[in-house]
């Protein structure tokens, strides 16, 4: 009996905690148990840290090209030097193969270039306003751009690692901006559709059905190709987000409408109506808080689709255009199979795409399960 007492006590305690916990606490406790979702969240935090501090993680200017360093393979880092932890790389010398005219790079084993963390390098503005010249990694006694090639270089000799860091910034934020737009459209139209019902509902539902039965990629391609060629990077960026969210809102609208319809019949809504609350108050004070978690889940699950869309469009050369750097733009270099076979590292950015999309899916699933265990 004595053995059981503590267990019983904690059980009661746990129940007490559940009884007084807020909706968000309950969700958090359920979410925490979903290991894949927690893992996905951690990965996403890492991705967004990279997006925020891309200049810090990159060690050279992603646009700096040098024909002398084209298509270099990823470099091997030697972590230990004579038994102690002193990472270094060998200096590389490039020559042209007399037979194939391909550039080949041979490590010069007599020249060791030590790698340091938090090294000083090119100056940049952290978060856009804090001047800094610290980078995650750098080299001593040489310029990072001339001696460090963690992920190799592309055709124009630009450092792929640094480019990937900046691409992460573009691609991860385009997902957010685009989903925010879709969210506004989806919540407003879905809300109207679900709350008022009737003719408005029918019209909006038909519009959604029509939009969903159009093959999106050809449509996007057409719209994206029609963007004036002289637009600058920022304009194209926003135009692409608008084009992508043009279709993306339908799924969110569907979720919001479904929730509105099921909540409309609830007693607490009726009570609010009888108390004489205005429509706006009923919607925003009473109904929205009870399904906001579902919207968050649906939003999270919408982001990966947007990321894939942007990547696909840019891959085709119709989305973001150089000098903008995004995952899709980087993967454009991998379009040519022959080039890919010779330099497979050009495909590395695709891992970033896949990992980000997986992480978003895991996190979204976790949130959905936590928000509504009965769904």
């Amino acid at each position: 009996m004595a053995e059981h007492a503590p267990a019983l006590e904690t059980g009661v305690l746990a129940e007490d905690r559940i009884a007084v916990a807020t909706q968000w606490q309950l969700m958090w406790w359920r979410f925490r148990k979903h290991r894949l979702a927690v893992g996905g969240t951690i990965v996403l935090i890492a991705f967004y840290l990279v997006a925020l501090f891309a200049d810090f993680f990159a060690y050279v200017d992603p646009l700096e090209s040098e024909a002398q360093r084209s298509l270099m393979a990823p470099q091997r880092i030697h972590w230990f030097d004579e038994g102690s932890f002193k990472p270094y790389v060998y200096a590389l010398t490039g020559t042209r193969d007399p037979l194939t005219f391909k550039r080949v790079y041979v490590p010069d084993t007599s020249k060791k270039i030590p790698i340091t963390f938090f090294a000083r390098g090119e100056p940049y503005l952290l978060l856009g306003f804090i001047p800094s010249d610290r980078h995650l990694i750098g080299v001593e006694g040489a310029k990072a751009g001339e001696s460090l090639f963690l992920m190799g270089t592309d055709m124009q000799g630009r450092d792929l690692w640094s480019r990937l860091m900046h691409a992460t910034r573009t691609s991860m934020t385009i997902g957010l901006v685009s989903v925010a737009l879709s969210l506004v459209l989806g919540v407003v139209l879905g809300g109207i559709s679900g709350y008022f019902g009737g003719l408005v509902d029918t019209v909006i539902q038909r519009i959604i059905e029509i939009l969903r039965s159009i093959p999106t990629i050809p449509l996007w391609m057409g719209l994206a190709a029609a963007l004036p060629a002289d637009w600058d990077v920022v304009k194209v960026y926003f135009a692409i987000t608008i084009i992508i969210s043009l279709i993306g809102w339908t799924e969110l609208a569907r979720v919001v409408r479904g929730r509105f319809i099921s909540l409309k019949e609830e007693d607490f809504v009726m009570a609010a109506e009888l108390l004489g609350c205005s429509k706006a108050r009923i919607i925003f004070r009473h109904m929205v808080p009870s399904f906001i978690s579902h919207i968050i889940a649906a939003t999270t699950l919408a982001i990966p689709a947007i990321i894939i869309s942007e990547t696909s469009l840019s891959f085709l050369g119709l989305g973001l255009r150089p000098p903008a750097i995004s995952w899709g733009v980087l993967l454009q270099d991998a379009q040519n199979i022959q080039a890919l076979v010779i330099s497979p590292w050009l495909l590395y950015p695709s891992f970033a795409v896949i990992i980000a999309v997986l992480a978003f899916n895991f996190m979204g699933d976790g949130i959905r399960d936590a928000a509504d265990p009965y769904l």
Partner: protein
Amino acid sequence: MVAYVVRRLLLAVLTVWAISVLSFMIIHLPPGDYVTSYIASMSASGSAVSEGEANALREQLGLDKPITVQYAKWMGLMLQGNFGMAMEWGRPVSDVIGDRLTLTMVISVAAIVFTWALALPIGIYSAVYPYSVMDYVFTFVGFIGLAIPGFLLALVVMYVGFAWFGANVGGLFSPDFVEASWSMAKVWDLTKHLPIPAVVLGVAGTAQLIRIMRSNLLDELRKPYVMTARARGLSEYRVVMRYPVRVALNPFVSTIGYLLPYVVSGSIIVSLVLSLPTVGPLLLKALIAQDMFLAGTIVLLLGVMTVIGTFISDLLLMWVDPRIRLGRQ
């Protein structure tokens, strides 16, 4: 039942109209009109277009009229099967598109057949043996399949084919058959080349459908009538297949309407990577060359074919689901 068919048909017509407006917008978005770009492309290739010819062209296409009239005129031409000229090719659009549109549909349908053939049994298996090792394996593979965009998968397939087997796995025909006219041998050659694009295109959809099928069937298997059937001593096969699977199949069939546009969409990009002779590469070329007339037509025709496909799947749904057939929603 009639009401259902009529409603679906109306919706299909509405969709076609919406697509035509969007395609028209695509044609009209860039500055200048079709004739200006036509003149530009003609003079680029060395032949001049006289003022009179240009005006005649404008008049024929009604480009001097207000935009709504232009739209009506364009639709009229479209309905007569006159899709205009593909500038870059100097041939009528219908000539250029021809087989390619058919092949796009062949590949899309093959992808959907693959999706179904795989998703159905795996979904049933995962629901009957939930949380088993194979269930976890399928879920894991499914997640990966969902996360890989079609064009990336196509790239990887091409890369593996090239680097490991030294073969080009792209294309839809062997070199001997590319220019050949249609014959049984060519159809057989096409059939042999279909699996790779079908699999590449179908993977993401398969992953999604497995999840849908699994959760539908899991819900259904928990219901009391299943227990009743079991208590009556029905064989396990009959218990699962007789009713629960049929009920779970409904939402499965209804998603085909969304699957088709999705697959057609994907086929555009995948075709580019695998160099398949579909409308995909043609569309991209047309867009880059700002041949908006060809591009708009392709978008329109793709859309219309998708709508027809969706309509057929609606009829299929009616056949599978008696609740729709008998007029009760």
